[in-house]
């Protein structure tokens, strides 16, 4: 009798363990139970650095706000893949609508279809619920920097509204540290972020010092890239010659291709 009970218990346990591995079992949308690849940004930054090493012209695509638009994101991946010139892709945040772990995984799985490496900024929606934890596990740190050719890409978390003073957002000390970190390896800088200064989630109180003290402190600041507002826009917010290139949400089926040459940079907006 005891053997029967034990056998039944073990069978039930084995069944549950078996089905727990299948895609149909979910404990909770905000369960941070990650399947598949982690530290995507960290790995891809290393790939970008090695692939762009010694190159004086850098060509990359920028998109963002792909949340909830998986079909469009797939089409974006297809469109980027048919252009051989693009060396990497920057996603400027809002991979998810609700910050659930599944949404991050679905977006990661689609973006992993890119032939070139990509990195993702954190968006305000990505911070919801346990989103920050999922983002950090799947993608990596929310402020991160890499060097492509001789251009330093500083990618910032600017979603101050989502943090309630838990962390310094934007992390001004982090920006300042990038002035000199790996000083001999870069001459110019590009800054990417989800929300631009004076948008609803940015800490507007520090907007001017963010721009004039910290961004201008970076050697050879070229331009900034941001998302969040879902519309295509190019704006010199501070009238200082630094343009904020705003990517539209992927539903608009448009993205940027930037080309940085030794003498300057150019961009085009691509529709797909």
């Amino acid at each position, binding site marked *: 009798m005891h053997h029967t009970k034990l056998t039944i218990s073990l069978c039930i346990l084995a069944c549950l363990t078996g089905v727990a591995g299948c895609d149909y079992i*979910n404990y*909770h949308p905000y369960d941070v139970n990650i399947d598949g690849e982690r530290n995507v940004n960290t790995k891809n930054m290393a790939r970008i650095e090695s692939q762009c090493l010694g190159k004086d012209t850098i060509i990359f695509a920028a998109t963002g706000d792909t949340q909830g638009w998986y079909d469009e994101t797939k089409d974006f991946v297809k469109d980027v893949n048919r252009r051989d010139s693009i060396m990497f892709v920057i996603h400027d945040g809002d991979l998810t609508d609700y910050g659930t772990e599944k949404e991050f995984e679905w977006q990661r799985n689609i973006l992993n279809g890119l032939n070139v490496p990509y990195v993702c900024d954190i968006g305000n929606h990505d911070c919801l619920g346990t989103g920050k*934890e999922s983002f950090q596990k799947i993608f990596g740190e929310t402020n991160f920097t890499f060097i492509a050719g001789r251009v330093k890409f500083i990618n910032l978390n600017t979603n101050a509204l989502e943090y309630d003073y838990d962390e310094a957002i934007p992390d001004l000390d982090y920006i300042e540290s990038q002035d000199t970190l790996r000083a001999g390896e870069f001459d110019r800088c590009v800054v990417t972020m989800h929300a631009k200064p004076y948008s609803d989630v940015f800490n507007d109180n520090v907007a001017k010092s963010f721009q004039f003290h910290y961004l201008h402190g970076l050697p050879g600041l070229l331009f900034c890239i941001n998302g969040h507002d879902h519309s295509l826009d190019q704006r010199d917010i501070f009238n200082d010659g630094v343009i904020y290139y705003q990517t539209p949400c992927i539903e608009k089926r448009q993205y940027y291709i930037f080309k940085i040459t030794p003498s300057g940079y150019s961009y085009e907006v691509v529709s797909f």
Partner: protein
Amino acid sequence: MDTAMKWFLSNIVALLAATTCTAAATTPPEATTVADTVYVTRVDTVYIHTSSAADSIADVAPYARRLDRYYKFWGRLIPRGVRVQYAGNMGMFSAGPTWIYGKRHWETSLMLGFVPKHNAHHGMLTMTIKQDYLPWSIHFDKVGLDFQPLATGFYFNTAFSHKLWVHQPSRYPKGYYWFATRLRSNIYIGERLKFNIPENRRKGLCRSISLFYELSTCDYYFIQKVKNSYITPDKWVTLSFGIQIEWL
């Protein structure tokens, strides 16, 4: 009613009513008087009314009726089962009492569950209120089995975490997010198999054990499914299992 339940109800009423109890150990007849105590036997309960021997049954009846109504009302709220569920966007395991009513076609359950820590900073406790509807039951007499080919309903789940909110915190502009991260709405369909235990073989309160499975989805995933062909059933549908033990 089950013998144990009858005993319980009788004792509660006895304790409420008997202020200077001189109760006899044996169950008295229909209505009788021993010294200054009046015993009234109704259905399956003994009321003990203590006063002078002059009090008649007519004086006792209105109060007994009120008591009767009182415990019948609370008696209706006694859970008639308990349920344990695995997965289903309400936690890894959730468990709680079930109320069964409407000719056993309708069920309401309140469950507490937990979400393991996994890769998060901490796990979470969850609470779910679930409404079920079981329109049909196919009875197999020989084996004492009931097959319920359709169980359907909805449930609301909340998770206890400081990271989630029902009303968005005041730092957000009004109506910034249209959804509440702490409150999920789910719908499901499923099936059940109920094993009835013959009366002479029942142990404790258990009169039947049901096994069920459910296919469910929550609002978050369903909205994305509607917008995208990429969101295939393995992404928006969730499978869960459970067991329900019924008494009463």
